[in-house]
Structures are given as C-alpha cells and as structure tokens.
C-alpha cells in the first residue's frame, strides 16, 4: 500500500462510481442481462453517482459532506468503507473503518438485544474477549440494560437505533463515517451522540459526517466537502461551503450546470470508458435527485419569499399602529378635559333637582296614603264582619238539617234491609236443605246401585267358575262377601288421576274378564267383535287364553330383542285388515313404550288394551300405567296367593258405560283363576293405604331394582338385563334377569339355587320358562317364529321385588356364580 502523504488517512484520486440505472433495473430478465453483459449495451444506462473526486483527509480531521439528495454523499461513504469498489480512479483508506449508518439493517428482529449486540460486534470485527470486556460500557452508553433479553423487533425505533450505535462507538474504528440517518432517538441521546463525536475528535480519530443539518456541520467540521450531482463542487472552509450550497441549491436555480462548470475544471472527463456510449451527457444527475433538488429549491425560495413578505408587512403594521396610537392620545387629551367639566356641571344640577323632587313627592304620597287607608278600613269592617257571620250561621243550619235527614233515611233503610235479608235467608236455606236432601238421596242411591252392581259381579264369579277345577271353586266359595264402601270408588280415580269408569275386581283375571265383557257387549254396538284380531306377545299366554273364548283371534308377535317387550317394528309386521286391538302387557319388569304405542294405535284406529298385573302405581311418562290404554287392567300386591291381591279395571271416559253393560260370559271360557283373592281387605282402608303405599313402596322397589340391576350388570358375560324405557319410572314389582347363552348354568339352576339359598327371603313367585306356545288348544295366529320370546321364557328369571332383600339376593347370586365358575 503506498505511503499516504503527510498523515493523510484517506486519499482519493479521480474517484468515480457508476451504477446501472433504468426503469427496469429490478425487472431485468436473464435474457436481457445476458444481452447486456455480452454486448455492453442495454436499455439501462450508466449513472455516475460520483465522478472525478479528489480528496485527501488527514488523520484526526473532521470533514463535513453536504449536498442535495443524489449528490453522491452516501456512495462516497460506501466507497470509503470499501463496501463498494470504485468504477474509476483510486481510493486509499488507512485504518479500520466502517460506515456508521445502516448498521441496524443487519440486525435480526427475532433475536434478543444481547444476541444482536454480539452479532453487530462480530460484524464490526470485534473479537470475543473485546466484546465481553466492552459490553458494560456499551450498555452504560445505550441504557439498554433492561432490554437485554427483549427481542430486537420489540424495541421502539429510538431504542433500536441505540443498539448498533452503542456497539459501533466501541468498535475501535479509526475512521468514522457518519450519515445523518443516525440522528434518531430523543434529544438526550442525540446530545450524547454529539458528545461522542466531540470525544472522537479529541481522541484524534478521523470523522466524515454527511448531514443535511448545516448547523451540525457548522458546529463539528472545520472543513466541508460540498458535493453536487456526483461532483465535488467545493472543498474547503465550512462557512464558504455552506454559503455556496445554500446559494445554489437552496436558491432559485436548482440547475447543476454552474456547479459542474466550476468544479470540473481539473477533472474533465477522461477518455470515456468503452462501456459508456458517447451520447451520455457528462455528469448526468439522477432525474429523481434533480427533481428533488428542484423541489428543495422551490421550497427554499418560497420560504425566503414568505419570510421577506412577513417582515415587510409586520413593519408596516407596526408603523400604522404607532400612528393610530399617537393620534388617539392627542385626541383624548383634547376632548377629555372639556367633556369632564361639562359632565360634572350637569351632574350637579341634576342631583339638586332630583333631591327637591323626591322630598316633595314623598311628603304628599305619605299624607294621601294615610288618609285613604283609614277611610277604607272604617267603611268596610262592619259590613264584612256582618256578612261573614250570616254565612256561617246558614252553613251550620244546612249541615245540621242534612245530618238529620241522613240519619232518618239510614234508619229506615236498615229496617227494610233487615226484613229483606230475613225473608231471603228463609227462602234460600229451605231450598238449599231441600237440594241437599235430594243430592244426598241421589248419592246414596248411586252408591247403593254401585254396591249392588259390584255385589252382583262378585256373585257372578262363582257362577262363571262353575266349570273350573273343584278346588278353585271351593276357594271362591269361601270368599266372604263384604260390602264395599263407596269411597273406594273415589280414592282410586284420585290416586291414578283417572276420569273414566273404574271397577275394583277381586283378581287380575277377573278384571280382565270384566274388561272383555264390557268391550264385547253388543249394545249399542260392540267394541270388539268375534273374528277380529288382537295383537300381543306370546309371553302372556294365560291372558291370551281368554281371547278365543270371546271369539277374538290372538296374534302373537315376537319380543323386541333389547327391551324384551312389545316392540313397534314387530307390531307393524303383525297388522292385518282384521286387526282391531293391541294388547300391551307388563313383561320383564317393565312395560312397552306406551307413549309411542298410544300414538301408533291412534294413527291406525286400533284399541289399546293395557294389562299390567304388577304395575299399579307405576308411572310412564306423564301418566300412570293403566291410563294410557283405551281399556286397562292393573293390579298390585306381588304374591299370587296374598289376600291383598286384587285388581282394577279401567277405561277411558269415552267408554263410560263399559262396566254397566251386561255381556254373557262365553260358555267356552277357560277359567284360569290365577289369583283367587279373598276380598277381605278390599275396602276403604285398603284403598287409602294402597294409594298412600304407592309412593313409599315405589321408592323401596326402585332402590332394590337399581341395586339388582347394578349387580347383574357386573356380570356382562353371564347375565343380560332387559332395557327399560326412559319414561318408565322403574317401579316394577318384579325384576327380570336373563341368563346368557354362553353362561355355565341355566336359568332353572340359578332359580333353584336362589330359592334354596335365600329361603324365605326369596318370594315364591320365581317364575321362569320354558312355557309352552300352545294357547290352551285354541286358535291363534303366530306371525313367525318367536326366538326372542323363547329366549326370554327359557332363560329369563323373574324375581318379585316386594319383600325381597336386594343385598341378600345379590350375595346369593354372587355365591352361586362363583361356585359355578371354576367347576365348568
């Protein structure tokens, strides 16, 4: 590297830098690039950002660089920083340097401030140990201690500018190139920067400062380079450089011509490089820069013009104001004395006159007022007081008279009213007593009739039973005939919220027969006729047995495989033109979906007959079981041989006369008296007790059923539970569990074991399959094979819940199952 003369650290000779510039510089395609590189021509043209610059800067010098936009200031700094290489001429820079602007652009917004400082230091060529050593100084300068681990992108622009700057000033640079973009940050920070520059100057570092702030240049730099359109227009004393800059660019003419003429004398364009066509004008300024310069010029001119005019007009205004003030002062002095004198005189006269007038007026007014007041009072006092007294008297006498009149009329009215009330009372009470007698007689008659009716049905039973087995007849004969109390008929409808006819029967079968008699009675026309079909499940064979006797044909459908009860899909299949009724029965500890069944029957105009022998008091959805069907028979009392076993026959209000009709019982009726119940307790007490009993018993049963279900559910491989409809409040009197096909024991074995194990705890009514599919030899129509029915009957185990200790039963079941397990 050649020795620079006399301490010069920067020496530039004929320094020039050209760029390719054109409207398409960014969109240039590869083809065009190839073409340009091959031929050296293209749509782009060369722009000399800087040309023919001779510059020598000594060590420790501070050089200002000014010029309009596009003059080549930044290009010069980039050339000096060795980021750009000169296109012509040469430049020597001795010492470590870097430009002091644009440093922020290299920082990464996703990294922390500390990481960025480290990166920036590395970019400025600072070794590890130096960075570690100077970090505290950097932080002290930038005051960024609190933001060290903040992401750089999260900083405000003012704070962000400090990051790179604080690193750079500790970067051991010998030559510092400053661009005014640096001047961000608050005033305090800017002052600090200025202090830093002064410090650099004191340390003997070389500074090159580019700025549009002429004040800053003036303060810091003794020598200034004034660039215009890429040429050095002036290099020397700062004051002179600023004067020239202001005159040429801040003045009226933004034309760079005179500048070029002055500056280029020693550096006339050398032989044009081959890449540059001749046609290129020398020192072509960047059009944008030129436009910007023109704008700058116009702006400055306008500003100066405005300032001049403002000064002129303010001077004139001041003059005029002064004149006016003088004249006003003179006038005031002249006039005010005379005016004051006149005014004072007039005021004195006026005051005297007013005083006189006031005294006279006051005196006269006082006298006349006193006179008039006295006269007025004298004249009116007598007159007014007399009139008032008179009116008072009148009013008192009028009120007294009115009071007396009212008193008289009241007394009179009272007497009249009393006599009227007396006579009315007489009349009404007589009528009421008569009516009461009448209705009591009617009620008694009605009760008598009902009782007679009831007694008659009771007496009919043994007659009908005449064809039955001898022991049945003997049981029935032993029944004590106890008269029923009338209240029974009131309690049950209330308990069930039932409005239609209701009949209390001695047994469930009796109730069902009563129902069938009513439905088939001829007058005026029968609800059910012989030959019509009644659809039902085959699981309730003992009920089905009655139907052929009345001429009906039972049609058997299979059970729903999940609920093990009558299902709508199966029912749908069984319908024929002859179908007239559907028989819904309680089965598997539950009832079918009565709500949907009701809708199903309504839609097809079918009669729905409910038979729920164990569900009296159970609830299905919004209604009680037994009140969903057109006709129903329900029963309560679990054990078949219990003396409390009895049943109710119900019907809808439309079938009001159903129990009044007399229909002969068929000769062929098979008498299957399953529950021959003595009617000993079938009175008011039982009815009340039973209806009260519903709630408590239901709760007890529910708990037991829940416990049993939960227990059985824990053996999913062995036992199945029928699904209960959601609306059915599981108030069943019985609980059905089904032994699965794969289980190592049969339902019969389980039943036997349970009966043996739990002894008296287990009720006698452990009914189980298989039952026969014969209907007492009578005609029936089976829709198809009935696998689900068979499954339930052969594998189902029905436990009556009443009186059953659920825990005890569960334990017995568990013992049985654990005993079976290992054996098979």
């Amino acid at each position, binding site marked *: 590297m050649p020795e620079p003369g006399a301490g010069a650290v920067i020496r530039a000779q004929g320094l020039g830098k050209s760029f390719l510039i054109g409207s398409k510089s960014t969109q240039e395609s590869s083809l065009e690039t190839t073409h340009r590189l091959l031929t050296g021509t293209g749509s782009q043209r060369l722009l000399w950002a800087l040309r023919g610059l001779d510059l020598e800067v000594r060590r420790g010098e501070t050089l200002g660089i000014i010029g309009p936009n596009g003059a080549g200031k930044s290009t010069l700094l980039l050339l000096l920083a060795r980021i750009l290489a000169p296109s012509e001429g040469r430049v020597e820079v001795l010492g470590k340097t870097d430009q002091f602007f644009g440093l922020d652009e290299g920082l990464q917004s996703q*990294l922390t401030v500390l990481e960025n400082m480290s990166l920036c230091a590395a970019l400025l*060529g600072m070794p590890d140990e130096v960075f570690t050593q100077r970090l505290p100084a950097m932080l002290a300068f930038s005051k960024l201690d609190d933001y060290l681990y903040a992401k750089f992108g999260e900083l405000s622009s003012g704070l962000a500018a400090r990051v790179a700057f604080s690193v750079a000033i500790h970067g051991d640079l010998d030559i510092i190139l400053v661009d005014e973009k640096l001047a961000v940050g608050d005033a305090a920070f800017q002052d600090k920067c200025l202090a830093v520059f002064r410090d650099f100057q004191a340390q003997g570092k070389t500074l090159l400062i580019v700025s549009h702030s002429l004040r800053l240049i003036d303060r810091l730099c003794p020598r200034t380079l004034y660039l215009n359109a890429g040429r050095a227009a002036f290099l020397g004393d700062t004051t002179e450089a600023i004067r020239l800059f202001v005159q040429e660019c801040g003045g009226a003419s933004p034309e760079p011509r005179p500048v070029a003429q002055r500056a280029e004398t020693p550096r006339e364009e050398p032989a044009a490089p081959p890449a540059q066509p001749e046609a290129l004008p020398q020192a072509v300024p960047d059009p944008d820069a030129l436009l910007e310069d023109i704008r700058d010029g116009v702006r400055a001119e306008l500003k100066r013009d405005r300032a001049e005019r403002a000064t002129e007009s303010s001077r004139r205004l001041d003059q005029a104001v002064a004149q006016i003030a003088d004249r006003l002062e003179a006038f005031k002095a002249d006039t005010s004395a005379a005016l004051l004198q006149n005014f004072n005189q007039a005021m004195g006269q006026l005051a005297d006159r007013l005083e006189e007038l006031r005294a006279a007026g006051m005196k006269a007014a006082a006298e006349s007022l006193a006179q008039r007041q006295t006269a007025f009072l004298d004249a009116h006092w007598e007159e007014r007081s007399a009139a008032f007294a008179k009116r008072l008297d009148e009013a008192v006498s009028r009120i007294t008279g009115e009071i007396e009149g009212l008193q008289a009329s009241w007394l009179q009215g009272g007497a009249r009213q009393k006599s009227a009330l007396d006579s009315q009372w007489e009349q009404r009470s007589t009528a009421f007593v008569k009516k009461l007698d009448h209705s009591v007689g009617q009620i008694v008659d009605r009760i008598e009739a009902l009782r007679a009716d009831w007694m008659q049905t009771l007496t009919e039973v043994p007659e009908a039973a005449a064809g039955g087995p001898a022991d049945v007849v003997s049981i029935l004969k032993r029944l004590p005939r106890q008269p029923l109390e009338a209240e029974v008929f009131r309690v049950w409808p209330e308990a069930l919220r039932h409005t239609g006819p209701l009949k209390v029967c001695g047994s469930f079968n009796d109730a069902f027969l009563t129902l069938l008699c009513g439905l088939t009675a001829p007058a005026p026309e029968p609800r059910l006729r012989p030959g019509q079909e009644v659809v039902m499940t085959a699981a309730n064979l003992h009920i089905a047995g009655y139907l052929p006797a009345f001429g009906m044909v039972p049609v058997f459908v299979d059970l729903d495989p999940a609920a093990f009860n009558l299902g709508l899909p199966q029912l749908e299949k069984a319908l024929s033109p002859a179908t007239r009724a559907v028989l819904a029965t309680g089965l598997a500890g539950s009832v079918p979906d009565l709500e949907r069944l009701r809708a199903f029957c309504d839609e097809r105009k079918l009669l729905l007959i409910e038979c729920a022998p164990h569900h009296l008091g159970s609830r299905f959805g919004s209604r009680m079981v037994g009140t969903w069907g057109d006709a129903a028979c329900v029963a309560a009392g679990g054990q078949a041989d219990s003396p409390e076993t009895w049943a109710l026959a119900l019907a809808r209000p439309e079938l009001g006369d159903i129990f009044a009709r007399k229909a002969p019982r068929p000769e062929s009726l098979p008498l299957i008296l399953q529950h021959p119940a003595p009617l000993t307790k079938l009175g008011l007490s039982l009815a009340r007790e039973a209806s009260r009993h519903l709630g408590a018993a239901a709760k007890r049963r529910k708990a037991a059923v829940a416990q049993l279900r939960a227990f059985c559910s824990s053996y999913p491989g062995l036992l199945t539970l029928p699904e209960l409809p959601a609306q059915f409040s599981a108030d069943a009197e019985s609980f059905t569990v089904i032994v699965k096909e794969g289980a190592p024991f049969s339902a019969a074995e389980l039943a036997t074991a349970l009966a043996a194990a739990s002894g008296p705890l287990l009720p006698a009514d452990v009914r189980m399959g298989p039952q026969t599919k014969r209907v007492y030899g009578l005609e029936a129509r089976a829709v198809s094979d009935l696998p689900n029915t068979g499954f339930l009957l052969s594998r189902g185990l029905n436990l009556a819940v009443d009186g059953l200790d659920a825990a005890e039963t569960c334990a017995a079941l568990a013992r049985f199952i654990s005993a079976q397990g290992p054996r098979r």
Partner: protein
Amino acid sequence: MDQGRLPAFWRLLRELTWVEFKLREQGTVLGFLWTLLYPLLMFIVLYLLFVRWLGKFVDMYAAYLLIGIVLWNFFQRTTCLALTSFSRRRSLIKNYKFPREIILFSTIGSTLIPFVVELVLLLGFVLAFRVEPKLTWLFLPAVIAVQIVFVTGVSFFLPLIAAEYRDIERIWEVLTMALFYVTPVFYPLSIISEGKRTLLLYNPITQILIAARGCLIDGTIPLWPSFAVPLLEGLLLCAAGYYLMRRYEYHLVDRMMEP
C-alpha cells in the same frame, strides 16, 4: 485480508451460523425436529414404495436407502440454502465490510448442525437394521468431510450466479430433482445397464454414496475412485469458487445496490 483479523472472522462465522440456524428453526425444538423428520418421512415413503422391487437387488436395503437419503438431503438442502444466502443477508452485505464467503460458510454451518444429528441417528438406525458394527465405520468422518468439501465447492458458485440470474433459484430446484434421479439414492447401481452405469459414476455424489455405503454396510474402504475423485473435485471447485468470490465481490454489492 490480514491475518490479524482471522479471530474476528471466526467469531463472525460462529455468530452468523448461530443466527442462521436459530432463525431457520425459529428457535423451537419442534422446528428442529421437523428438520430431522423430513429425511425420516422420505425414507418411509421410499422404503414402502421400493422395498419389494429393489429390496431383492440390495442387501440391507433399509440401511442402504437411509444412508442415501441422509447424505443426499444434506447436499440438496445446503445447496438450495446457499443459493439464496446472499440475497437473504443482503442488508448485511450492503452495510458491513467483511469477507462475503463467511455468509456462505455460515449457511453451510447451519445445515451442518442437523446433519451431524442425522448422522448420529443414522448410525443408530443402521444398527437397528441389523448391520454389524465394523472398524470401517471409523472411516465415515472422512467421507463426510469429502462431502462437505464438495458441497462447499458447489455452493461457492450458486449465490454468485443467483446474484446475476435470479432464475437460478427455480432452475436449481429442477436440477437437484433431476440429479436425485440420476443418483443411486434409492436404487442400486446394479440395476442400471453397463453403459449408463459408467455415466452415473461421473456424478461425484454417486461416488460419495458408494464410499459411505461401502464403509458402513460392506465394511470396505473404497479409496479410489469413490473417495479421492469427489475430494479432488471438491477442492478444485472450492479453489475456483474462492477465486470467483474474490473477483466478483464488489460486483455482487453493485448488483445488490441496484433494486
């Protein structure tokens, strides 16, 4: 550049490598995992596609395929990133004075980090594929070094071309894809006919793959030509690339100043 600044440049290289790595992986664990997952997914797909067809030609097809994918993936990822490295670090180049190839090295360094992890995992997988560990495994670092030299040599040219012709980004994608198919990454050379096989052997990556598979699976050290040829080519490319970089260093900045 004077020798005194070498520590500073070394520091800059470390800083930039870390920045490049951190920005790419977004500093998250999952981001880095995805980088590792990519070759694994590629392996699964190719393995399922080709094991029945090509598995009978190659002993240890799974290990064979995985080695190919890991080494290929490094080549492809590094060259693609190197191609855009200068334009991604445009603001640094425009504002700071430092040897421009540091940016290139930092890009290679940043892909080297996951590559080394992949290599360690690769050894684990190769063991899992029941390849016996052999003494020749110790030769693997040398093969990897050759690959790094070769990749560096190629990477020298790409950003220089990219500065002049932006289209190269698209073209290089297509080129690497084509190169993938003429490199025995997922197929064995033995299924290629004799004449074409010679042609494929001119591909230095083919040689590197042969060397790597040789020392990992077969237990051989194929010094010539599989080791020496790519090494010589890589060194040659590096020298030429460094020369070009020095020569066009300022031109590069001029091109970046333009838009």
